[in-house]
């Protein structure tokens, strides 16, 4: 197997999540163990079996001008907000050519799990109630799953390619893997990559609830998402996303960019087992982790931290623990892990992006955010779960993994390195 020697580094971060409208507030909330899960207040929630969710902490309508927002599905609104923050954070301003970049060397990879579902549903309501003439001419450009990546490419004048991986809850991580490939293959020098999701609405909530995927507890919202805890009973639907600016190390160095971390490798696999159930032995996850380590030229002994997928479902969390133990063996109980979904819920196509961003910041600051609500660890979980307060990591070079798995059996593991 040959691969390009190009190293890929993270030079800009952007996020809007259930615990913060930007990267700084999101990171602060994660370190504080603060949950963004709330009782939903929309009228339609009354008839639903699940009445909690993790809405974006800052509504995009508070950030984007009205006219701009009305032409974008909420998932694309999140993408534009994240892209602007990440772009500025990387030291760029204006479109690619204004920022001194060759537009043909700038790419976008923005993932989605379900696309512009709420735009589709609201236009279906118009069709049914008011007739075909009232369906918006913007419906298709808004609801197509590639709308966030296309809009970001227009925003930044990114002409190297705009792509949209779709692999359910691993989509955001797959976007980062795709971006790494673009840079390694020489297709781009700079790629803005990540994912967003915005489907807190009755149909997806009813559907996920009927899959038995969502927690049905509604009494104490901030305590509902409890990965690895004995009393976990499903995930909480969140929304938002994250985008990062990735660059070839050479390009970043040439312009003197600040580097948060390196994305050293990616590993992917498919369970080929069941459309919704995790494969119980975790073999697909093990394969993805080993591929990521090999791709990054790392061994299991190099890994100092794992940012887990851990959605708080009974079967999924155990399968992930089994897989980590299979890879790390006796060392497993000494590797601090965390599960951000305990605070931000499950952002579906945005999850892998936000959690990778958390992994990057964990390496950058040397601090592992705690997992909330782990009051009583499940006897079948054998992991060193960081709880209550952040855990300090050693100084110097370190490597960490981010796990992301999706309905359909998609497994994506990313390896990050602090150099």
């Amino acid at each position, binding site marked *: 197997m040959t691969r390009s020697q190009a190293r890929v580094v993270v030079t800009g971060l952007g996020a809007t999540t259930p615990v913060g409208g930007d990267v700084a507030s999101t990171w602060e909330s994660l370190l504080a163990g603060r949950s963004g899960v709330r009782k939903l207040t929309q009228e339609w929630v009354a008839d639903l079996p699940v009445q909690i969710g993790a809405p974006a902490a800052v509504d995009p309508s508070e950030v984007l001008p009205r*006219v701009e927002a009305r032409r974008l599905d909420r998932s694309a609104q999140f993408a534009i907000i994240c892209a602007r923050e990440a772009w500025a954070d990387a030291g760029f301003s204006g479109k690619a050519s204004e920022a001194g970049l060759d537009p043909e060397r700038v790419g976008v990879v923005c993932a989605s799990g379900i696309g512009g579902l709420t735009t589709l549903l609201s236009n279906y309501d118009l069709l049914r109630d008011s007739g075909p*003439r009232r369906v918006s*001419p913007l419906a298709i450009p808004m609801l197509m799953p590639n709308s966030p990546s296309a809009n970001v490419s227009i925003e930044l004048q990114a002409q190297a390619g705009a792509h949209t991986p779709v692999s359910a809850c691993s989509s955001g991580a797959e976007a980062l893997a795709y971006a790494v490939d673009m840079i390694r293959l020489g297709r781009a020098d700079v790629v803005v990559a990540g994912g967003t999701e915005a489907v807190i609405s009755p149909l997806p909530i009813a559907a996920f609830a009927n899959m038995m995927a969502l927690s049905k507890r509604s009494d104490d919202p901030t305590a509902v998402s409890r990965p690895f805890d004995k009393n976990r009973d499903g995930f909480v639907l969140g929304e938002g996303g994250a985008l990062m600016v990735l660059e070839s190390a050479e390009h970043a160095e040439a312009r003197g960019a600040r580097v948060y971390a390196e994305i050293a490798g990616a590993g992917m696999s498919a369970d080929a087992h069941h459309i919704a159930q995790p494969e119980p032995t975790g073999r697909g996850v093990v394969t993805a982790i080993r591929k990521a380590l090999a791709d990054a030229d790392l061994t299991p002994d190099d890994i100092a931290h794992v940012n887990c997928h851990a959605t708080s479902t009974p079967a999924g969390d155990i399968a992930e623990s089994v897989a980590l133990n299979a890879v790390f063996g006796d060392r497993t109980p000494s590797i601090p892990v965390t599960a951000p979904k305990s605070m931000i819920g499950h952002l579906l196509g945005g999850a892998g992006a936000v959690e990778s961003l958390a992994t990057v910041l964990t390496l950058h600051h040397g601090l592992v955010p705690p997992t909330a609500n782990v009051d009583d660890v499940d006897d079948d979980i054998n992991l060193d779960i960081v709880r209550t307060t952040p855990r300090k990591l050693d100084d110097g070079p370190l490597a960490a993994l981010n796990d992301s798995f999706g309905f359909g059996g998609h497994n994506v593991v990313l390896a990050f390195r602090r150099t």
Partner: protein
Amino acid sequence: MASTEEIREGLAEIVNEITGVPAEDVQLDKSFTDDLDIDSLSMVEVVVAAEEKFGVKIPDEEVKNLATVGDAVTFIEKAGS
């Protein structure tokens, strides 16, 4: 029936709502595409909103003939009379 100025004002409100162009810029001599920078998708939105507001039908094949705000006002006046 609304006066020419009332129709222009109504149209200006719609254009402002959909595109953010200031209502006072929506004058009879202005071209939707060249002066007001309204793309074809937004134009369809403007047309559908105008149909609703003024109780008229503006067929798709007619839309391409509505180059200026004045063209649209004239069409709506005729269609409504």
